[in-house]
Each structure stands twice: as structure tokens, then as C-alpha cells.
């Protein structure tokens, strides 16, 4: 699993045995990483693999707990982003981390602005900015506000900022996630120019095609540990996906499949026709029947969460129709769909699920209580019984209904959030990454629960980055790729290999755009 390629030249960046710990969590453990001059090095891994943490360790945002970083052979320890920048490491973060309320020129040069008589020389600054923008192929008014430009332009401005210092290391953290084909092609052109100038480029992307298009070398992380360093030529798409998702090829166990759950000829519980949202997901057709578990597979950024939110009414659809239980709906918010019996467990537990300072009891009955309205409180006896029932059923620990939610482990929080919806007896349960970041026991528990619920007649839409899990629980799998529905697999086709080959298949729209 270790390096199999011959090294050329000494690494610019050499990170050894890097660990990063946050209170109670080890986000990165003993990872080695190196970056050579004049290469594009892709850092691969699913959510929670530790990519961002590794980048932040390098750029001084979260200094590593243990381990050493060598830059040009010298040991360095950055504990603020400014220090790394001064040392020639420039970073373009995933979300454009610039200031929409300032001008383009300021966004490029603030912190290193040209000065005259002690004050900022606006004219010189705009001239210098213009020069840098030319290098990234942009010609826009440098005095205009950054926020007035589309995200793609902002992304290029961020790269221009990275070029201000004579950067020897350029970190691009998912720079393409919001760009279209032509914009990606333009970005890659610039990246190649920089690479040929000898800049070492660390590149993170979820789009496999892009990685194979641009990367000279790849490092794969999984669950905070190093999987290995590879050359793109020695590893095909499917092997890469397998490395990222943690699955050895050739040990395909046959997964126990439930017999076809759907009653033949029955009308679907939910049916979406050409349902889409600009900038989030291309129009999708989807049917879900009662008693059926539909898996939604795809890499991060493929549009799986966006689709789920749209079905729940959390985001409004721009196109298409949504029929639930025989009636067409145009939900303007979650309440309408909740009333219809739809439940949605968000992937972002912390921001969209957990009410941290409230007790398990309050968190558990929140949705049910919200549906009843404040004036009709759930009688204490009922809530006691419900909470007790679900604490036992889902094995929530601590088993104390009054324990404060923020003191629970991630797995137990997730169980409480699941229970929050189960007590509303939904007809369709949408689970977005219900098992992410939780321990194995809790994971198996939740998977079994999903099967049981479907057995009782509930429809479930199950989203997960872990393909084995999707295969294990789903009767049918919809595969998304680049915000499009790429395939729908049923029966014998529901296998990890099949899904992986769909995910890894070169996508038409991207290759076309990038190649042109």
C-alpha cells in the first residue's frame, strides 16, 4: 500500500506522522504526505476522511497535535494562516473565503497591498491586481465589488490572490465544485501553467474525471488515516473509489436481499417528474413506493442532499412536479410535507438537527410537538412512554431522558434525531447519511431498523456515501453523478461493483467540456 513510484526531486512539503486531535476526537492519525515541485497532487477521500484537516494543518489554521512539517527541507510550525502565507503556501478554500463587500483588487492584495507614503496606493494596487488577474485569464474591473461577480469568477480571484506571494505551494481545496465545464477547463489551463512554473499544487476534488485529467499523483485518506499514495496510471477509477470508500476488491460478499417489497401495480407513494433546482440538481424522475427502501448513491457533491431537501420541501424546486400520496404538492417549507407524513434527517446533524442545549426528551419530541402546536403539549405520561420506548428500542445512551443533547456521542445524537421522526409515524422517511461518523454498533443498529421500518410499510429514501451500506439496506438504488441521475439499479444489479462503475464512468458533460 505504500509508495510505488519513483521520486523525482526533493519534496517541497514533507509532512510526517501528522495527527490532529480535537477534544474527544482524533481527526487525523499518523498521516504522511509530501508534495513535489511542479506536480499536481490530488488529495482524495470521502467526507470525514481528514482532507480538510490535513490542509488546515499545513496552512496553520489548526496546527497538528503531533508530527513534523518540513518546508524546503526546513522544519516549520505555523500557528496562524498569515505565517504559512509568508512562507509561500497559498490556499484557495472550498467555499470562496474572500470578502464580498470589498473590491476585487483589495481581495487580491489586502495584507500585501502596495504602499505610498505609508498609505495604500489604490492605483498601484489596481494595476498589480489587473496584472495578476491576467495571469488567471480574467479581465474584470478591479474596483468592482467581489460580491457582484459570479462564484466562478470569485474562485479565479481567489487563485489570483494566491499568486500574489511568489507561492511555491498552492492548495486548491475543491476549487471546481461550483464551476461549469468551460470554467473548469480554464482553471485547469491556469493550473498547468503554474505547475510548469514549478509550483507544487495540492488539489482536492470530488470529481474523479477531473482528478484523472489534472493530477500527477494521488494520496488517498480514509477515516483520518493514510490509505496510500498512487500514480493515476497505476490505479483505475474503480480501484480509486474502492480505496476511498474502504473496500477491497474481490471480497464481494453476497448481501442478503429482501424479496421484492413492492406490491405489483400499486401507485407510488411519492413520484417526482423532472424535479430540479437550478444550481443544485438537474431535473430528476423518481418514484418511491410504500414499504420500499430506495438507496441514493453518489459521491459528495453529486446532488444527493440537494435532491432530498427538495423532496422534503426544505428547498423549493424550480422545475417539475412532486406528487405525494396521489396529490401534487408545491411545498413552500417543510411543514407542508411533514403534515403529509414525510420526515427528513439531515446529514448536517450539528447545524440542522441537534438542539444542543435541550434534553434528549425535548429533542426527541420536537417534531411531534411542532406538528401538534405549542398549546397542545404532549402529556408527560405519553412523552415519558415514548422517550422510554425509543431509548430502549434504539439503545440510546445515556438512557436518561433528561441528559443534555450536547453531551451525547455522535451516534447517540443520531439515534435521537431518528427517533424524533419515528415518533411522528412518517410514511416516507428520508435519511441523509444517517450513519456517518458513528460507531459500528450504532451503524448496524440503524441499518436493521431501516429494514424493519420498511417491513412495516414505511417508505425509506436512504442516502449514504458507503456503498455497501446502501446495497445492504436498499431494494433499489438511484445513482447520482455530477448533479444528474446517472442510473437506477434494481434487483440483481444492486451491487457495489455496479454502483461504483456508474459513479466512476466518465461523465459525458464534463469530459466534453474539459476536452474542448
Amino acid at each position, binding site marked *: 500500500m505504500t509508495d510505488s513510484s519513483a521520486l523525482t526531486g526533493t519534496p517541497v512539503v514533507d509532512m510526517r506522522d501528522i495527527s490532529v486531535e*480535537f*477534544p*474527544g*476526537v*482524533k*481527526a487525523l492519525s499518523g498521516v504522511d504526505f509530501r508534495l513535489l515541485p511542479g506536480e499536481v497532487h490530488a488529495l482524495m477521500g470521502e*467526507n*470525514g476522511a481528514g482532507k*480538510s*484537516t490535513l490542509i488546515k494543518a499545513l496552512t496553520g489554521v489548526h496546527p497538528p497535535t503531533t508530527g513534523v512539517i518540513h518546508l524546503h527541507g526546513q522544519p516549520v510550525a505555523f500557528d496562524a494562516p498569515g505565517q504559512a502565507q509568508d512562507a509561500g503556501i497559498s490556499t484557495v478554500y472550498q467555499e470562496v473565503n474572500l470578502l464580498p463587500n470589498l473590491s476585487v483588487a483589495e481581495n487580491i492584495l489586502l495584507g500585501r497591498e502596495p504602499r505610498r507614503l505609508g498609505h495604500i496606493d489604490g492605483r498601484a494596487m489596481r494595476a498589480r491586481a489587473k496584472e495578476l488577474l491576467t495571469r488567471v485569464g480574467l479581465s474584470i474591473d478591479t474596483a468592482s465589488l467581489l460580491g457582484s461577480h459570479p462564484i466562478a469568477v470569485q474562485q479565479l480571484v481567489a487563485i489570483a490572490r494566491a499568486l500574489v506571494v511568489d507561492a511555491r505551494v498552492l492548495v486548491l481545496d475543491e476549487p471546481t465544485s461550483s464551476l461549469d465545464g468551460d470554467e473548469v477547463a480554464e482553471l485547469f489551463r491556469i493550473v498547468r501553467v503554474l505547475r510548469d512554473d514549478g509550483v507544487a499544487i495540492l488539489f482536492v476534488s470530488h470529481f474523479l474525471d477531473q482528478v484523472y485529467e489534472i493530477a500527477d499523483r494521488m494520496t488517498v485518506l480514509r477515516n*483520518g488515516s493514510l490509505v496510500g499514495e498512487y500514480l493515476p496510471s497505476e490505479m483505475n477509477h474503480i480501484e480509486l473509489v474502492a480505496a476511498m470508500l474502504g473496500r477491497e476488491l474481490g471480497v464481494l460478499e453476497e448481501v442478503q436481499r429482501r424479496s421484492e417489497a413492492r406490491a405489483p401495480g400499486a401507485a407510488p407513494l411519492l413520484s417526482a417528474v423532472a424535479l430540479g433546482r437550478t444550481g443544485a440538481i438537474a431535473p430528476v424522475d423518481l418514484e418511491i413506493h410504500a414499504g420500499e427502501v430506495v438507496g441514493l448513491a453518489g459521491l459528495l457533491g453529486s446532488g444527493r442532499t440537494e435532491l432530498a431537501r427538495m423532496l*422534503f420541501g*426544505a428547498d423549493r424546486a424550480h422545475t417539475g412536479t412532486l406528487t405525494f400520496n396521489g396529490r401534487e404538492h408545491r411545498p413552500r*417549507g*417543510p*411543514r407542508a410535507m*411533514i403534515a403529509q407524513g414525510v420526515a*427528513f434527517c*439531515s446529514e448536517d*446533524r*450539528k*447545524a*440542522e*438537527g*441537534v*438542539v*444542543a*442545549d*435541550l434534553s434528549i426528551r*425535548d429533542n426527541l419530541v*420536537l*417534531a411531534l*410537538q*411542532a*406538528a*401538534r*402546536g*405549542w*398549546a*397542545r*403539549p*404532549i402529556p408527560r405520561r405519553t412523552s415519558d412512554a415514548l422517550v422510554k420506548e425509543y431509548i430502549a428500542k434504539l439503545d440510546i445512551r445515556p438512557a436518561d431522558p433528561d441528559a*443534555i443533547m*450536547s*453531551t*451525547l*456521542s*455522535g451516534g447517540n*445524537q443520531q439515534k435521537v434525531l431518528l427517533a*424524533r421522526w419515528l415518533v411522528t409515524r412518517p410514511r416516507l422517511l428520508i435519511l441523509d447519511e444517517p450513519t*456517518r*461518523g458513528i460507531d459500528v454498533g450504532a451503524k448496524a443498529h440503524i441499518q436493521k431498523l431501516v429494514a424493519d421500518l420498511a417491513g412495516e410499510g414505511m417508505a425509506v429514501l436512504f442516502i449514504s456515501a458507503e456503498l455497501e451500506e446502501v446495497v445492504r439496506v436498499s431494494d433499489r438504488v438511484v445513482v447520482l453523478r455530477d448533479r444528474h441521475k446517472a442510473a437506477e439499479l434494481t434487483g440483481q444489479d444492486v451491487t457495489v461493483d455496479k454502483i461504483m462503475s456508474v459513479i466512476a464512468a466518465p461523465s459525458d458533460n464534463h469530459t466534453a467540456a474539459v476536452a474542448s
Partner: protein
Amino acid sequence: MTRGRLLWPLVALATLIVLNIAVEPSFVELRIQDGHLFGSIVDILRNGAPTLLIAVGMTLVIATRGIDLSVGAVAAIAGAIACTYISGGGDTVTAVLLALSVCVLLGLWNGFLVSVLGIQPIIATLVLMTAGRGGAMLLTEGQIITVKDPLYRQIGSGFLILPIAILISLAVLTAVALITRRTALGMLIEAVGINPRAGELAGVRSRTIIWTVYAFAGLCAGVAGLMISSNVNAADANSAGLWIEMDAILAVVIGGTSLAGGRYSLAGTMLGALVIQTLTTTVYTIGVPTNVTLVFKAVVVIAVCLLQSPRTTKMLRARRETAVPTSRSQEVAAG
């Protein structure tokens, strides 16, 4: 958790009381005269009644991550309406109802700006804070309107063994505690304040809830305004309820409810209001000019806020955690 938050205000209150007794041993004396209870403590309660009442409404507003700066102006409007109506020969009960309805409407207006238009609470309520007092002045035509109405007088200075004002405030406090804790309102308010997005996704009607708490804050301010004006038998649009919003906010914050919203403590608010009122009385007892109270108020506020600040809490928690390592949530790792 709540008990920990109440520790510092309790310490502050106890210190103040001890200080008072040391300076003036008769501080704790109570006597009954004409069936009325008299004494320094009763005075503190009576003078603190309007602040306490407003602080109760403010607690709920702050729990939703909001703030209401307009309560002082609303209080002035309530007094102005009631006194103008009564001095014009109107019936007392109608006057009171009229004043309170207007205050509820003003609260609804604040709620509209915050929940529907999505304007920051501090600036949304600043509008009424600025314009409201002007409106009250307009009603009273800039005069101090005095009324001689025995019934109206009862609100602020009547006695049923204890001063009626404090009985009203305590009744409202108890009612709010019962209503929010016996129904689901309190939990939903806290959920909206702690994690609005989670609340929204769980189907909580956050807009209605926010609207309701501002309306209720308006009502509390109205009743407090009637107390203030009834106590002096007059409506003084200029100075009635001046800075009371600041005292109320301080009472809430001292009581351990964070301005960032979420868990609230009505008991804490009551303690906070008592601390502020006792402080005022203490300074007076010691013989310092009344206006200098402000310095002490500042010191108490800063002390309590620093002790409750996230940084201090973190430091204390860090010390506790190194002693007993606990496994906390893994969210930090994601992203």
C-alpha cells in the same frame, strides 16, 4: 446547569443583603400597619415590580435570540393612553384595556419587523424606541397629565397586604412559568433560539413563536407602564420608563439567560431584577448619591458577565475535563 448559572447572581444578591444589614440593621424589619406590610424589603419589591415584569417579557424575547429595546417607550405610551383617557372622563377599566391593546399591537409590530421582514431585532425595535416616546409626548401634548382616580391608583400603589404591583408582577411571572413549562411553548421557544434551522426543519412555526413573544413583551411593558404612571398618579411621557429596557435586559443577562438565545431561566430573571433593585436601594442606604448607582451597576454587570462568559466557562470546563476525561461529540472532526 441552571443551578450553576444562578450561583453568581445569588452570591451578588446575598452580598448586597448582608451589606445592607451591616449598614442598617433595620433593613430586614417588617411591620404591619393598616393591614399593609412595610419595610425596606417590601420597598425593594415594589420599586422593582415594573422592571421585573418587563424583564419577564424580555426573557422570552431574548430566548428566541432577539431583543426588545422599545419596552420603555411602550411603557410610556401605556401610561399616556390610560391617563389621557381617564382625564378625559373615561372609564378606568376601558382606559386600562385600551392602553394594553395598543401595547400588544406595538409588540406585534416589532414582531412583524423581526419575523416577517427579517430585520435584526436590535434595530427593528430601535425604531419604536425612538418614535414611541415621541408618540407618547404627542398624546399628552408634552404635558404631565395627572389623574385622580382611586381605582387606577391601586395598580401602582395599592396594597393587598403586599403592594399590588409586586403581586401583579409575581402573578405574571408565575403564569408565564406555568404556561411555558406546562405547555410546549417554552421548549419550542428555546429550540428556535438555540438552533433555528433545526427547528424549522422539524416543522416548528418559528415565525408565529417570534411574533408571539414580541407581542407578549409589549403587553408586559404596557402593564409596567400603567404601574409606573399609577404610582405617581400621572403620565410623564418624557421620563416614564426611561432606561427601563436596559435594566430589564441586565436583569435577564444577570439571571443567566444568554443574549445569544436558547435556555432561559425565569427564576434567574427574578433574581437579576432583585439584584438590580437591591443594588439601587443599597447605594441609597449607604448614602452615595443615587446617580452613582450606575457605577456599581456597571461593576456588577461586568463581573457577572465575565464570570458567565464563554471564555471563562471554557477555562473552567477545561480544568474539569482534564480531571475527568469525557468523550464528547465528534462533530468537531467533520469538515
